[in-house]
């Protein structure tokens, strides 16, 4: 089976007076219906890796393949199109647009893709938000919501164009335990109920152990690559 996302020898070096290597020689395949945790110490390059996998950033060396398609030769606009339709991104901070209602925020990627009319996009956005327990907040702007609610909106927005894979960078990093449980539950349901693939960076070992597979990053390199059986051996992040 073709991996949804595949990294082949991916290295990212930031140019500068002192060049910084963010990730180094990463080889990785992400398959359908996987629920993957990316763990590792602060500053080890987890976010950087996620940006590369999500085509937000381009590798200095190596290649990222989406559905088996090399992205090295893609134009900037083609990459944007792939991000829009094939990948959903959730950041640690919700990154919602403050001037738009949460429904509009979720509808934006649908309207950008242009497959749905603006009416249909709004309906679908409302459906998604309702399914995440936000029925009473559809017309509110992000600043009127709690952190956990905003993060649920962010997940809804990531799902807007029904991509097969969601990349989440510490989606629960700034949430209390109740909100964390809710958001994590939603992500897990995406995999188990909707057949999505979810890759989430997390510091929370309790969450990591509930996921199918853990990728441990240290100094920009993959440290371990183990199966669910070896959960117990995960180092504390």
């Amino acid at each position, binding site marked *: 089976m073709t991996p949804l996302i595949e990294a082949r020898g991916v290295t990212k070096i930031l140019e500068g007076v002192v060049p910084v290597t963010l990730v180094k020689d990463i080889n990785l395949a992400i398959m359908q219906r996987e629920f993957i945790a990316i763990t590792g110490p602060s500053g080890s390059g987890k976010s950087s890796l996620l940006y590369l996998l999500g085509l*937000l950033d381009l590798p200095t060396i190596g290649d990222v393949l989406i559905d088996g398609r090399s992205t090295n030769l893609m134009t*900037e606009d083609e990459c944007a199109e792939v*991000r829009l*339709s094939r990948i959903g991104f959730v*950041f*640690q901070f919700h*990154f919602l647009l403050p*001037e738009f209602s949460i429904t509009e925020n979720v509808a934006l990627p649908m309207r950008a893709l242009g497959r749905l009319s603006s009416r249909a996009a709004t309906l679908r956005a409302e459906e998604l938000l309702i399914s995440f327990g936000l029925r009473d907040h559809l017309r509110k702007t992000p600043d009127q919501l709690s952190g956990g609610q905003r993060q649920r909106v962010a997940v809804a*927005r990531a799902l807007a164009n029904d991509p097969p894979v969601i990349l989440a960078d510490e989606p629960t990093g700034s949430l209390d335990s109740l909100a964390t449980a809710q958001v994590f539950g939603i992500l897990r349901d995406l995999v188990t109920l909707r057949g999505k693939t979810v890759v989430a960076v997390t510091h929370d070992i309790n969450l990591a152990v509930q996921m199918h597979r853990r990728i441990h990053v240290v100094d920009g390199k993959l440290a371990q690559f183990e199966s669910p059986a070896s959960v117990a051996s995960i180092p504390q992040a």
Partner: protein
Amino acid sequence: MTLILTIAWTHIRHRTRQTMVAIAGVITGVGFSIMMAAMMEGSQNDFIKTLVDALPHISVTDELREPTRQPANIVYRAAEFHGLTPKARRPGIKNPMAIIASLQTWIPGALTASVQSKAVLRYARRNLTISIVGIDPRTEVGVSNLSTHMRQGTLSSLYRASNAILLGDRLANKIGARVNSNVTLVSAEGAVMTARVVGTFHSGFRITDETTGYVLLKTAQILEMQTGIVNEIRVRTSDPMNARLISERIGEQTGYKSISWQESQEDLLSTITLRNVLMYTIVGAILLVASFGTYNIISTITHEKTRDIAILKSLGFNNKTILSIFIVEAGLVGLVGALLGWGFGYFLTWGVALLEFKTPFSDDTHLPVLYSIKHYLLATGVALASSLIAGYFPARTAARLHPVDIIRGAT
């Protein structure tokens, strides 16, 4: 498109004060541009209208188009003689009535024969050199506005006495002559006659009012001491703008020198062109300055919205969409400003037209203005274009932004 509009509208809606300032800039620019154009073109049209009204549109004189060839040059191919007296040519247009009749067949407009002469006018021991124009009152009416410029008497008053004259009002005042005064005219040919003042006129042109007298053709012919002479045919064309072309054809047909009003007033008309260049430069500068406001707001929004732009781009919005959002914002500011500027410009023009003002070319006491949709469209076009250009640069910077740089910084 609706998506771009939605986002653009949301951005400017949330910045009411800045947007208002930018729009006010465009309104002011467009408004003043419209007013300036209305004033400039209004006074220009007024000026040309006065000019066209006062002058014959075409004047055909008895000078030949080519100088008369002297007998020696006709006989010898190349010759240079000194001390020869040039062969005198009898002045006047030959067969003037036949020429007028033939021109009348194709020229849209009216023609009249006249005699241009000079004479010294004597009255109350004052001598003034004046231009004497011999006219035919019946056809003069169709060619000049003299009949409407009469202050005392009418053109037909010329038939009242055997030698009658109409004087410019300034001239009459200067010498103290009144209707029924008898003045003495001495022509360059030596003819002396007593003429009775039967009326005065005021054309509005100082020179004319100060130095011209109108008499009957016959009277002028006596002063010239040549029976039947006509040395000028004046033409009023139905469309003054066609005068130049018609004048050329008259010249070709008759062989006489024919000059349109455009040619005789070339200097004035080129001054008008210069004025227009000046006007459009100033109007352009006003609108350019107005576009700085647009630049300011778009550039502010793109700076404030750096994070939002990064978010949109990370979601998969392409550069073109981001660019369009901000260009549309600039366009909205320009368009709304221009449309409101129409009202402002109309109001200013209306206000300026109310001002009491003495123009040097006519007796009208109001500043002449011209309401023309052309000015409105032109100002809108320039305002929109400069807004779009002003918006383009910050928009392009925004569209090129690399989302990861912003997101890395924020997390």
